[in-house]
């Protein structure tokens, strides 16, 4: 590892040299202290042509082989080519699922074209043109019309620890908004827009095509990006704004720099209302929050800002101090389809101008997208291959923070475009922010949680497993281990794996270390399994014991008499495991005299009877009384009351009756 770090340091030094040799008056930023190994460093200079919606520029990529094996090729993403026609894998997969195919005119499609790739050899002061060695690849589906991944052959193998410097000239056509990128009117949201090197891991290139349901994976590095565009635009981006230079030709150049990140996204619009605040989230730790707000959402300013603050504060407390000096929250423009997405130090929220407090919007999405900064950003989970390790953990984070900061949200519905809050119907945390449990219940047996993103049965199953089931699994784990152990575990997992691209096994190891036991038996059932979890109390019987009758010889007569001591009860509780998932569970028995008894069942066999005899019968029984198993798909059958409450059906039928009676009166409009 020391050797590796040394070679990375040399690599970083070499990173400076090409600019001295080949660039004109370019300043290069490199932090003295970086959080992560700077493996893929980009110095980019681009110009946004707002007339033609084109991005034209070049990037200087300095990349270090951190694997133990040499490589003869380099793999790159060209994500925007997913939007260049309707035959890309991205569009095809959407179409196969029955989702609408974008009705784009020729001018609406977007792409990214590499004009040239030159390898710069510093020591030899040589430049190799690698452009002829570019080749599009389709590692996932052999769709020859998909051009979202390309490779270049290197003139000679790049040995472990060696660094290569490539100058890539490119131009990219900004598409109409699609998949959180594009231009709508004069609002630009630019993400996944530049030729981006894949990840060389364990001697294999991890560089997947752009799929309908997959997100991203990249190595850490320093991004030093200059963006030139018309001066009327306000710009926000990943990292710190280091410069703003008015060029005199009606354009302005912004320079953003950030180390220890694995992506760079930016936005531009003349309409942003910019709000900045420095927020001290822990003693000695602060960050500058920038909120880029749409003018028509000005009433939501404080709610956005407070949500970001809550997110930073609690995430720092629970997952490690937020390490960057900036964070930018973008309120996406209407129709831009750029809401609810995360990039390092930069994310988009999303809101409707009338969203009332208590509806969860825009707070929930704001917290969620900020939270990605941990499991997508800092931890660097592979979203192509282990999407749950980002989405699931982030969903868990966002729910925990939301409920801590705001309490329960309420069911909300819009009538005539006006949102109404139903305070009679709060959404408990176990419900996973409304529809989470429902989605999981419908889809949990379709797929395992651990699948490559594009290999899920459909989008609904992807969402249900990767987001909902993963979050519910974590909440179940939290309640199973106890909040203290879980808190230590999740913080340790987060901090330990910063900048390290953990895999599921690493998560397993962290859980085991804190649980004090191998937890594979628990995790496997959810991560690599698709069985349901459903425990139920299916019967309680209170019986008077039978008076001894028949032939009893000698001592057996006395024994039988001893056992029968009226008016005692014989009571029996039948608990069943209706699902395939098996987790030890508690059963709470409440007797008619108020006495409580807590039993433990290993859940191994399909059912268990608990039998008691005593002066009174059983009043009720609850399996999983502490609601630890949030993943239980049917909570209603978890309890059994001998004498059920008779009022509820009357009460709710009466409530529904009113709706129906009023509906009938409204229907009369059409007949009398």
């Amino acid at each position: 590892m020391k050797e590796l770090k040394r070679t990375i340091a040399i690599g970083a030094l070499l990173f400076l040299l090409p600019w001295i040799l080949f660039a004109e008056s370019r300043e290069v930023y490199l932090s003295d202290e970086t959080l992560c190994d700077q493996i893929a460093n980009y110095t980019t200079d681009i110009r946004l042509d707002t007339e033609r919606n084109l991005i034209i520029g070049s990037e200087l990529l300095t990349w270090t082989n951190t694997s133990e094996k040499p490589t003869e090729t380099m793999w790159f993403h060209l994500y925007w080519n997913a939007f260049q026609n309707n035959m890309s894998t991205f569009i095809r997969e959407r179409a196969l699922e029955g989702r609408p195919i974008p009705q784009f005119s020729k001018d609406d499609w977007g792409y990214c074209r590499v004009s040239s790739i030159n390898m710069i050899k510093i020591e030899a002061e040589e430049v190799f043109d690698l452009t002829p060695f570019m080749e599009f690849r389709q590692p996932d589906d052999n769709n020859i019309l998909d051009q979202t991944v390309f490779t270049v052959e290197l003139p000679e193998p790049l040995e472990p620890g060696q660094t290569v410097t490539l100058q890539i000239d490119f131009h990219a056509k900004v598409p109409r908004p699609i998949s959180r990128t594009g231009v709508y009117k004069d609002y630009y949201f630019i993400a996944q827009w530049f030729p981006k090197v894949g990840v060389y891991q364990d001697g294999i290139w991890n560089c997947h095509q752009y799929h309908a349901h997959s997100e991203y994976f990249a190595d850490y590095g320093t991004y030093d990006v200059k963006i030139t565009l018309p001066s009327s635009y306000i710009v926000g981006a990943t990292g710190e704004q280091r410069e703003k230079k008015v060029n005199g030709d009606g354009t302005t150049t912004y320079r953003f720099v950030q180390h220890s990140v694995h992506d760079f996204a930016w936005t531009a619009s003349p309409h942003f209302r910019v709000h900045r605040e420095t927020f001290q989230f822990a003693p000695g730790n602060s960050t500058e929050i920038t909120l880029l707000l749409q003018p028509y959402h000005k009433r939501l300013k404080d709610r956005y800002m407070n949500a970001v603050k809550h997110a930073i504060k609690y995430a720092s407390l629970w997952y490690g101090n937020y390490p960057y000096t900036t964070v930018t929250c973008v309120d996406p423009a209407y129709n831009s389809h750029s809401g609810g997405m995360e990039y390092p130090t930069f994310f988009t929220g999303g809101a409707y101008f009338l969203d009332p407090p208590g509806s969860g919007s825009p707070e929930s999405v704001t917290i969620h997208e900020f939270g990605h900064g941990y499991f997508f950003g800092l931890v660097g989970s592979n979203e192509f291959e282990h999407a749950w390790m980002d989405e699931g953990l982030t969903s868990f984070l966002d729910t925990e923070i939301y409920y801590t900061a705001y309490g329960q949200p309420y069911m909300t519905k819009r009538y005539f475009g006006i949102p109404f809050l139903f305070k009679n119907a709060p959404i408990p945390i176990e419900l996973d922010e409304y529809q989470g449990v429902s989605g999981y219940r419908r889809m949990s047996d379709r797929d395992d949680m651990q699948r490559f993103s594009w290999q899920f049965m459909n989008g609904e199953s992807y969402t249900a497993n990767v987001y909902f089931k993963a979050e519910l699994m974590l909440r179940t784990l939290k309640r199973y281990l106890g909040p203290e152990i879980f808190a230590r575990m999740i913080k340790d997992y987060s901090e330990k794996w910063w900048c390290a691209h953990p895999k599921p096994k690493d998560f397993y190891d962290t859980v085991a270390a804190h649980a004090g036991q191998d937890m594979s038996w628990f995790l496997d059932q959810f991560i690599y399994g698709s069985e349901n979890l459903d425990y139920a109390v299916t019967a309680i019987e209170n019986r008077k014991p039978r008076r001894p009758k028949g032939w009893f010889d000698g001592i057996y007569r006395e024994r039988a008499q001893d056992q029968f001591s009226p008016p005692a009860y014989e009571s029996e509780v039948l608990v069943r495991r209706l699902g395939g998932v098996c987790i030890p569970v508690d059963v709470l028995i409440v007797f008619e005299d108020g006495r409580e008894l807590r039993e433990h069942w290993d859940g191994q066999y399909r059912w268990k009877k608990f039998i008691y005899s005593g002066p009174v019968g059983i009043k009720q029984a609850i399996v999983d009384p502490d609601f630890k198993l949030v993943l239980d798909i049917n909570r209603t059958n978890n309890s059994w009351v001998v004498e059920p409450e008779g009022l509820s059906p009357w009460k709710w039928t009466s409530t529904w009756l009113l709706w129906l009676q009023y509906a009938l009166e409204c229907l009369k409009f059409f007949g009398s």
Partner: protein
Amino acid sequence: MKFWINFLKGFHLTRKTARLVLLLFVINLIAALILAIPMYNSLKDSFGHSLVGNRMAKGFDTLWWEEFHDQSEGFEQTFTPFILGKGAILENLEMLVQIKFFELPPIIIIFGLAYILLHTFLAGGILAVFNKEPPRFSMTTFLSDAAHYFLRFFLITLVSWIFFFGLTGSLNHWFNSIVNRVAEHAFSEITPFYISLFFNLITFFLILLFRMVFDYSRIAIVADSEKNILKAVATAIGFVIKNPGSTLSLFYTVFAANVVVTLFFNLVRSFIPQTNAVGVLSAFIFQQMFIFAVVWVRCWLYASQLELYKYIPKEV
């Protein structure tokens, strides 16, 4: 102030025929109970022996509801948190204005159509009661009058559907396409919101207007013994056009009374705790008083309109 006199007269007439209002209310209740019984059974089955029943006695358990919703089908799907409190009114109002009744489960649509048919039948009896001098209600006469006018009223209903579903439905469709087009190119969601709200108001106004016109068509059939339904519709349209002030003022005053009743009901009902049998019974009784009031207001409107129609001299 023609409308004001007839507004009061209508109220007086309705008061004098309170038994009629009671009958219509009972019909509403019985009709609703036909579906409420299976709903009661579904809820009872779902609560079963579970502690959920206890929780639902105290408040609304959203966790249970999602399970119920995921497992249920048909008319049970209409049991949502959005029927609570103001939701019961808003859900129906939006369905009315945006003609969304056809999105309801088929069993409720079929039931609703049967209910419309039943009220098409009853409308003849109602107007005949108010048309009598002095107004009086007897079940035999009521039913025989209802049967007497039924065919013509049924045809009127069919014609009205051309306006309600054909015209308003097409208009809604057109409005929606305009809103979608505007939304597609709008700078913010605010523009489509206000346009949509404006269109909803227009639609609502039109639905009310059509209702008023067809009320007068039925009135013309009863008051003028008009046999030709198209002539009745034409007479009604002519009447409304010639007397826009009186007809609209009367209609909207009664409509305002409906709004007041609804607001009052929603306000008061929220204070009735339904955590025990007395609370549930009180809420039920109060709900029925509300529906009775709604039925009353509908009869009041008919009576007032009939009075106005008779009050204003016709051209010979």
